[in-house]
């Protein structure tokens, strides 16, 4: 073959390859650039929303507002807390929640796909496959194991109340009862924006915890029962620090902030007053303060979840 022919063939092959590669690269970069824009816009929207809601919350704040719960204040004669007795009484209703994280797979459960404007197409599928190979996701998925992640409390029948961030992203759930028994559980429903989830456990119902019809006043004692760091059925005591409307983590709503010793894993655990009645569920922590979902709101959301599940 002459040199001219060899050059001609090489030029033609490179020309065709470059054409194909540019087409593919153009398609891929158009998709990823559009997705990056959607991500940036959403981030700005979240920041705007939080700024606006924080300003609303700050404008509404007063000494009276931080004393105001979602239910009438507890004006009954104060009861000296007998924490050991209260813990013993509450424990049969308490569960430790264990779960296995959803697998990486091919990023099917990645929340990025739920951002408005983010596209999924052949380019994102191919790039995700490259990422899975690059970071060896199958190996990471093989390492998954069940671990205790949260707490929960029996409210009625086989239903257990917990918070939504405990069940989201979990593939399989089990609960460990105070008697040390493992039971399978299924999620009836979860409201992520209000951080409430309702789950159903197999086997005999657990005794439901008594629920308060009044909220403890600012400064009153409370006890949180949960699974700090994965150690189930642990307790920590503190006081009600304030009631407030928070927009930093969840949809703006009223929360009860407590100072009980609470760390990661306490989420979903119940907070009881000095009479052993459930007053809230542990949600998020801010340093030494923990945001809890008032029990009346948790029950209202759970009822809504149940109605939706029946339909």
């Amino acid at each position, binding site marked *: 073959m002459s040199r001219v022919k060899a050059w001609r063939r090489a030029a033609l092959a490179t020309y065709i390859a470059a054409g194909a590669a540019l087409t593919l690269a153009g398609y891929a970069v158009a998709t990823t650039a559009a997705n990056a824009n959607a991500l940036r816009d959403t981030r700005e929207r979240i920041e705007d929303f939080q700024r606006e809601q924080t300003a609303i919350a700050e404008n509404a704040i007063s000494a009276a507002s931080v004393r105001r719960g979602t239910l009438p204040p507890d004006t009954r004669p104060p009861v000296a807390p007998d924490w050991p007795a209260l813990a013993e009484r509450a424990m049969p209703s308490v569960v430790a929640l264990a779960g296995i994280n959803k697998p990486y797979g091919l990023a099917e459960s990645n*929340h990025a796909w739920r951002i408005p404007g983010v596209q999924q197409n052949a380019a994102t599928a191919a790039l995700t496959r490259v990422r899975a190979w690059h970071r060896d996701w199958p190996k990471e998925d093989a390492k998954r194991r069940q671990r205790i992640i949260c707490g929960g409390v029996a409210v009625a029948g086989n239903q257990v109340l917990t918070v939504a961030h405990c069940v989201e992203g979990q593939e399989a759930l089990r609960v460990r009862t105070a008697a040390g028994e493992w039971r399978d559980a299924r999620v009836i429903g979860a409201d992520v924006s209000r951080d409430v989830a309702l789950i159903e456990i197999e086997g005999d119902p657990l005794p439901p915890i008594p629920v308060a019809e009044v909220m403890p006043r600012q400064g009153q004692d409370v006890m949180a029962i949960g699974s700090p760091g994965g150690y189930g059925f642990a307790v920590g005591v503190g006081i009600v620090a304030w009631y407030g409307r928070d927009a930093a983590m969840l949809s703006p709503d009223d929360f009860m902030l407590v100072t009980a010793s609470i760390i990661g894993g306490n989420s979903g655990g119940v907070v009881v007053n000095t009479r052993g009645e459930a007053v809230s569920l542990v949600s998020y922590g801010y340093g030494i303060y923990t945001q809890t979902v008032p029990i009346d709101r948790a029950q209202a959301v759970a009822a809504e979840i149940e109605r939706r599940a029946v339909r």
Partner: protein
Amino acid sequence: MATANLNGRAEPGISKYCITFGVSLAALILAGGVLVFSYWQHVELLHEGDRVGIRLERLGLTDQEGAQHEPR
């Protein structure tokens, strides 16, 4: 048809193929660069997007239409 090369160049067509080859190779390298760029942009979406998607859901903003930023 002339068979002899009168201007002294052995293969007159070669330069045009060289240029095509060179330009195509440059385009191929450019396409590779663009693909690498889009890969890292996609990686950022998988990481940051997951976090932002969770925040969006927790703030209850997923039901709102479009991701356009509306100045207030």
